[in-house]
């Protein structure tokens, strides 16, 4: 019964979304306040209905109701409780329901907290949001209904794909979707602006919190997915330039560009048309990602069972939204007047440069991702585009961008002084050069260019504090004055500093971990020892055990360095009973929060020995810590009073906005 109610709620939500897609926009056209004001309550009610529907499916999973086909296919009664919850979205249908659920959460947030938005903009925005919701609810109801029953309910379920039975599934998809789907709001705002034919600096201030939120979550979601792959797959990789990863990375790159261009628009009223275009493109890339992952054109752990009908449906949605969005853009963009003249060397100029490199990099990733599909469709030749392609195209585009990052915040709006900025960065430059020389001098091995990469990372890290130093003036002013200035700094300054700091940290982590890691694959018998990067691993024993829905073979290894015990690692080879599928459970020890020792077990050999994979991964955690710092940067920017949703515009600002519009 609960399942049928859930299904019914979803249908009701679809009906509501149809109303939401028509009435408010109609109201905005004929300036009817009552019609426009329908949007908010509908958005909130819709959130309730989809929420209840989601809860109904969750209930079926938690109570192991195998009369529901979706539950039967993807759950098992002996699964630990957490995985019964996460199984809800560990499959195609449930995952699409989560997608729609997050979409309506965002819609409800705009409806509930967007009180200060001009009524027309709000009605149009929620109307566009209604189109997206209606389209995806229809997709779920028609092609991916999770509420199908089975006539004769089986006793036991078929278990969730073992590789997904991990805490990662609880965190990675919701975060990633919060990012992906969050960009629907900036898309809706842009389409609304185009429908209305007017846009001003205030528009950018209303949109920026949504872009920041989506971007922050997408950053975390990608980082979490990368760390999950790193420890779950057992081969020590964290990024494979797999099409599915690229699918999430492209909206991130484009969203990063959007984040920066929206600043220019908010502060200077320039780059309006470009910002609108970027926000359409960012959400288009999110949709493209959804299509690539969910349609089955790519085979991967994300694809689940594939069905051509679904692929076609999403393709139609994709073409409708991207094509419609871009067509509207082409038709209406000329109505938006440009403002704000600036010289190439200025804050605006640096942000344009940022956008240029980020969009070129997005294009490179897009070509690398879609080229194999296009080639197979046209010539039938099957190719794979892997890391070498992206290292050659994406890498060189990032280097000038990273070098330019510290300059941006130091340049004044309108007309900047590069020489003065350089003077403020001499210390960062000096330290980076010192770092490069020290790495060349003291670290053996590794590629010849690695120290330069580390130097660029250090340059970004130290340079990220330059704007704070410029505003606070430590060592130039008395300490008390500096401290009081530090307290008075706008939070958005901290936001951008942290964002850039995070980028630098991630770069350092990637360069060091990929250049100086040590990998060792060997066959070890109990009692054997191997020494890797100065750490001696001794195989102490094997233990077999059985728990929940799996059985384990666990190896015990003691790790010593210079005769002192470091830790004991216990990697596991696990076999899941229902599907008879083995998985690798790595064991990782983190030293000083930075470098990691990583062990996984391979096959058992005929003589009882085990294949063992050991990695020494220096500074590897910086990759994900950097992403975490970027996320905090987004949080700081969001907390800035000037950006808070609904914060009234100060009079001067409003005037300035009006005059530049």
């Amino acid at each position: 019964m609960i399942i049928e109610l859930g299904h019914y709620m979803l249908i009701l939500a679809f009906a509501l979304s149809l109303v939401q897609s028509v009435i408010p926009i109609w109201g905005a056209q004929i300036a009817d306040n009552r019609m426009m004001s329908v949007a908010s309550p509908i958005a909130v009610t819709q959130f309730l209905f989809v929420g209840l529907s989601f809860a109904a499916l969750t209930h079926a999973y938690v109570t192991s109701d195998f009369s529901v086909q979706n539950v039967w296919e993807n759950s098992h009664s002996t699964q630990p409780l957490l995985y019964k919850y996460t199984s809800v979205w560990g499959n195609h249908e449930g995952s699409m329901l989560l997608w729609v659920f997050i979409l309506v959460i965002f819609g409800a947030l705009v409806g509930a907290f967007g009180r200060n938005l001009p009524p027309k903009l709000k009605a149009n925005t929620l109307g566009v949001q209604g189109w997206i919701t209606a389209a995806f609810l229809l997709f779920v109801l028609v092609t991916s209904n999770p509420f199908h029953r089975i006539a004769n309910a089986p006793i036991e379920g078929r278990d969730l794909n073992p590789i997904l039975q991990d805490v990662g599934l609880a965190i990675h998809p919701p975060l990633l979707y919060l990012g992906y789907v969050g960009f629907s709001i900036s898309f809706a705002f842009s389409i609304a602006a185009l429908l209305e034919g007017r846009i001003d600096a205030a528009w950018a201030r209303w949109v920026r919190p949504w872009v920041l939120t989506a971007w922050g979550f997408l950053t975390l979601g990608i980082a979490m997915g990368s760390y999950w792959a790193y420890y779950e797959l057992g081969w020590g990789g964290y990024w494979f330039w797999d099409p599915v990863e690229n699918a999430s990375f492209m909206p991130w790159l484009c969203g990063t560009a959007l984040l920066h261009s929206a600043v220019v628009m908010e502060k200077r009223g320039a780059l309006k048309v470009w910002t609108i275009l970027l926000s359409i493109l960012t959400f288009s890339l999110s949709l493209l990602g959804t299509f690539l992952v969910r349609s089955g054109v790519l085979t991967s752990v994300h694809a689940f069972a594939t069905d051509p009908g679904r692929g076609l449906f999403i393709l139609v949605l994709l073409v409708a939204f991207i094509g419609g969005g871009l067509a509207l853009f082409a038709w209406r963009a000329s109505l938006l007047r440009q403002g704000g003249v600036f010289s190439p060397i200025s804050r605006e100029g640096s942000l344009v440069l940022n956008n240029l490199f980020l969009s070129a990099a997005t294009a490179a990733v897009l070509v690398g991702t879609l080229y194999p599909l296009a080639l197979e469709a046209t010539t039938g030749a099957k190719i794979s585009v892997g890391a070498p392609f992206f290292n050659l195209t994406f890498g060189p585009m990032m280097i000038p961008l990273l070098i330019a990052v510290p300059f941006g915040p130091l340049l004044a709006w309108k007309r900047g002084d590069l020489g003065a900025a350089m003077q403020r960065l001499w210390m960062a430059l000096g330290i980076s050069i010192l770092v490069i020389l020290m790495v060349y001098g003291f670290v053996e091995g590794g590629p010849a260019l690695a120290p330069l990469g580390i130097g660029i990372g250090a340059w970004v890290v130290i340079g990220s504090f330059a704007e704070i130093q410029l505003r606070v003036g430590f060592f130039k002013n008395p300490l008390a004055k500096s401290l009081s200035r530090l307290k008075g700094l706008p939070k958005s300054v901290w936001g951008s500093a942290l964002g850039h700091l995070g980028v630098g940290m991630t770069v350092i982590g990637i360069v060091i971990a990929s250049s100086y890691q040590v990998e060792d694959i060997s066959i070890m018998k109990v009692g054997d020892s191997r020494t890797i990067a100065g750490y001696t691993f001794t195989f102490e024993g094997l233990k077999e055990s059985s728990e929940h829905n799996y059985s384990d073979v666990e190896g015990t290894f003691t790790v010593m360095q210079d005769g002192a015990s470091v830790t004991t690692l216990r990697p596991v080879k696990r076999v899941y009973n229902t599907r008879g599928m083995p998985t690798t459970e790595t064991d990782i020890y983190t030293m000083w929060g930075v470098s990691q020792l990583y062990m996984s077990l391979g096959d058992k050999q005929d003589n009882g020995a085990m294949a063992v994979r050991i990695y020494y991964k220096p500074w590897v955690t910086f990759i994900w810590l950097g992403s975490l710092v970027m996320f905090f940067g987004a949080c700081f920017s969001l907390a800035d009073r000037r950006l808070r949703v609904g914060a009234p515009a100060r009079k001067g600002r409003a005037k300035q906005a009006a005059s530049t519009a």
Partner: protein
Amino acid sequence: MTRKQRRMTMIGAAGVVLFAAVGLILFALQDQIVFFNSPSDIAANSVKPGQRIRLGGLVKDGSILRGQGTKVSFVVTDGGADVTVAYNGILPDLFREGQGVVTEGVMNTNGAFDADTVLAKHDETYMPKEVADALKDQGHWQGDEAKAKVN
């Protein structure tokens, strides 16, 4: 600078970056892509030794031979032809006889394949698309058995 000069500077900078990006992408597409081949393609002599390719098919029953240490060899077949693959490392969790596999590496001069990568599968019922297509080409595709298990 006049407004026009500013605009030209911007457009010039954008042009340079875009030009460089397009150049890099085209160059990389020439050089850095890897073609997929089936054992039958290799038997037809379309692959030069030393050229980096992906080889996919089924792991032939009874063909897995473990050598010294982590060395292992197995035969990949698409029903039409067989290729012996040599690999040094840990095989993925779902590597089994009779199952689909995709490997990446180069043909050596003895007509065997030296793989440096054996791609992991994520699900025991999943068949790499390239492998399924290669089997269909050779008429050895066993219905939609794998798919039936999933649905």
